[in-house]
């Protein structure tokens, strides 16, 4: 009301003023604006009053009945009300292998070799805890329950939630965002094991202690760029005890829908680390030392990767097809020490190794899925200094392959039973027929899954 008074006073003063005519356009503009605002505010109030009246009228002859009342309101003490979400995954496998699983893929003895377990074993049992810490941060920890006893920290990281502008920052221990499969936890894998290329080049999954920053472009097409700086803890990194950065990762993802039934994501990634005294055991050599020798490598390791996933779900999502593939190529160059126990000969060494897989999973009826995966590795040709030319095998002349067939049944979203058969030709002269039976059960808070 006082606003109106001042305004009228101002208008009156203006009109009575001899210089009114000379008042600048800007002043007039300001007054017009004020009058307009006043008018608008009154209009709003009238509309509100009309609304209230209309509502009151309506409520008098119609009120929404609440027939069913909640039986029990969630009663939680103030202490437990803030408990984080807890997910316990119980997983176990039975493995039937004809060959010793400790033998690595031919030509990859100096790479990782997670292998398989035989007989009954506790597979991917893990405990996940997550919650918002405050408006700015969210915390996640995943503890893996090792089958031999003991607990390892798989993930323990903090994620920002209030940066905005498409930025997400993550720090702590996390699975690197490179590739497609790397970030996925074992209980969401479509097969019992990881593809050979992941097993050999990333020891199943690259876990890192470090910082990750991701930025999502403000476009209708999904374009995400990410960078990580880490300790270099996960294979191929060699854990370090000094200042600085041990590994770096860059990745980019692009994704979109095609029509209403297809969706797609593709990506490229780059990983770089400096390896120091990376020891590999039981490596076959040219002289044919029984049981192999121990080698040690120090040098640079650079890996490039490409990944894609395509999903097709006709008219909804009950039945769908997923096709995915990834390719990684690693170039290592540096100094290799042959037979650290006896000969101990060091000379330069360089090798390029690569691998890929292509897999498809089809949900052919509710609860049932089948999958087929083909794996292939290429040990490449190593080049080395003259001192080791007679010791180290430079060309294996063999490309490891494996074909896996999977069938799984999920009675509900929270349980899954799986059968997997594999024809493993990853070790020269040791073809293997493998059979796995697996269960994966989730208890407690079951969060949303990534694409």
């Amino acid at each position: 009301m006082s606003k109106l008074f001042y305004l009228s006073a101002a208008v009156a003063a203006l009109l009575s003023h001899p210089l009114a005519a000379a008042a600048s356009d800007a002043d007039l503009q300001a007054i017009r604006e004020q009058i307009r605002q006043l008018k608008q505010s009154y209009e709003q109030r009238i509309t509100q009053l009309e609304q209230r009246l209309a509502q009151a009228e309506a409520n008098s002859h119609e009120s929404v009945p609440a027939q069913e009342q909640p039986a029990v309101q969630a009663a939680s003490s103030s202490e437990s009300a803030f408990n984080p979400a807890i997910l316990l995954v119980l997983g176990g496998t039975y493995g039937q292998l004809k060959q010793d699983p400790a033998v690595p893929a031919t030509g990859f003895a100096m790479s990782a070799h997670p292998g398989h377990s035989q007989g009954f074993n506790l597979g991917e049992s893990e405990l996940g805890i997550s919650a918002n810490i405050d408006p700015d941060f969210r915390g996640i920890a995943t503890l893996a329950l090792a089958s031999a006893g003991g607990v390892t920290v798989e993930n323990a990281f903090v994620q920002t939630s209030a940066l905005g502008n498409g930025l997400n920052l993550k720090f702590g221990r996390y699975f690197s965002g490179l590739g497609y499969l790397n970030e996925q936890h074992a209980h969401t894998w479509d097969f019992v094991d990881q593809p050979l290329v992941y097993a050999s080049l990333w020891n199943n999954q690259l876990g890192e202690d470090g910082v990750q920053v991701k930025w999502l472009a403000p476009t209708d097409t999904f374009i995400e760029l990410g960078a990580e700086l880490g300790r270099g803890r996960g294979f191929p990194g060699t854990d370090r005890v000094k200042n600085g950065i041990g590994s770096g990762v860059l990745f980019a993802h692009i994704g979109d829908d095609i029509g209403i039934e297809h969706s797609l994501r593709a990506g490229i990634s780059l990983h770089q680390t400096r390896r120091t005294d990376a020891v590999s055991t039981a490596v076959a050599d040219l002289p044919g030392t029984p049981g192999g020798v121990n080698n040690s490598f120090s040098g640079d390791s650079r890996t490039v990767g490409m990944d894609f996933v395509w999903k097709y779900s006709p008219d909804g999502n009950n039945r769908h097809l997923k096709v995915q593939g990834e390719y990684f190529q690693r170039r290592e160059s540096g100094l290799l020490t042959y037979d650290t126990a006896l000969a101990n000969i060091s000379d330069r060494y360089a090798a390029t190794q690569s691998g890929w897989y292509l897999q498809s999973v089809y949900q052919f009826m509710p609860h049932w899925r089948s999958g087929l995966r083909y794996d292939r590795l290429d040990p490449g040709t190593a080049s080395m200094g003259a001192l080791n030319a007679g010791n180290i095998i430079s060309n294996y002349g063999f490309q490891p392959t494996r074909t896996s067939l999977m069938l799984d049944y999920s009675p509900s979203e929270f349980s899954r039973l799986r059968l997997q058969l594999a024809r493993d030709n990853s070790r020269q002269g040791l073809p293997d027929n493998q059979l796995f039976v697996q269960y994966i059960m989730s208890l407690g808070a079951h969060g949303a899954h990534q694409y």
Partner: protein
Amino acid sequence: MNKFLFLTLLFISTASHAALNVFACEPEWAALTQLLAGDKASLYTATRALQDPHRVEARPSLIARARRANLLVCTGAGLETAWLPVIVRESGNAAIRPGNSGYFEAARFVQMLEIPARLDRSEGDVHAAGNPHIQTDARNFLPVADALSKRLILLDPANTGYYQQQLTTFNQQWRTAIARWEKQAAPLKGVSIIAQHRGFPYLNNWLGLKQVAELEAKPGMEPSVAHLSQVLNELQQAKMVLRAAYQDERPSAWIAERAHISAVVLPYTVGGTAQASDLYALFDDTINRLLAGLK
């Protein structure tokens, strides 16, 4: 100078044409936002009528669209837990985080039904906050529209007058429509029905339908033949079996054939059937289909 002014005005006016980027989780909320915000909002609908809103994947396209959204309009009550949290997180958009003004859950503004007394996964896919399928009772749109309009005003105060006007219009027309639907649906009162999924408590509550059985043994579990046979034995005087358009037609067809009752497909949301082209048509079609099922 004039040209520059004109261009500036043109820019401002085009910008104000769609001041708000709205990301609607389900088609019914997109339709409601459309009625309340008109051309002041540019709308993106995350799911289609024939998709099961429980089982949507956090696709890259959804994350990209959420990135620039000013407002997320969703059902809530746990309906979108399988995908929405990932989308909000990955979008790097702080405005649409739960608790911020850009996050709107319709279920917060209606009286929830079927809040479980016992939370146990052996009961199937139960929702702790109650049954989330609130859009089957037309009356629920009134409190939601009221709250949504307030949210639009909060985010875009420059258009306050417009939003209030739209809300008034909506309230009047919607109340008239409710009265008409209730009159049309009078013959449905007390009619016994079977539901394929526990998805119609609000509809039953509104129109007085009596649900005598469910085809899913537990919510979210696909009906098995054994359970269907049991339901068939328990059938009393059910007149029809209901399913939402996105659900598999076989279980209800199986029961309908053996029990000699009609199988009724309800659009469930805007776009679920060819007739349900907007929010009004959604309920016109729902009631027409129910009445046709009586015959």
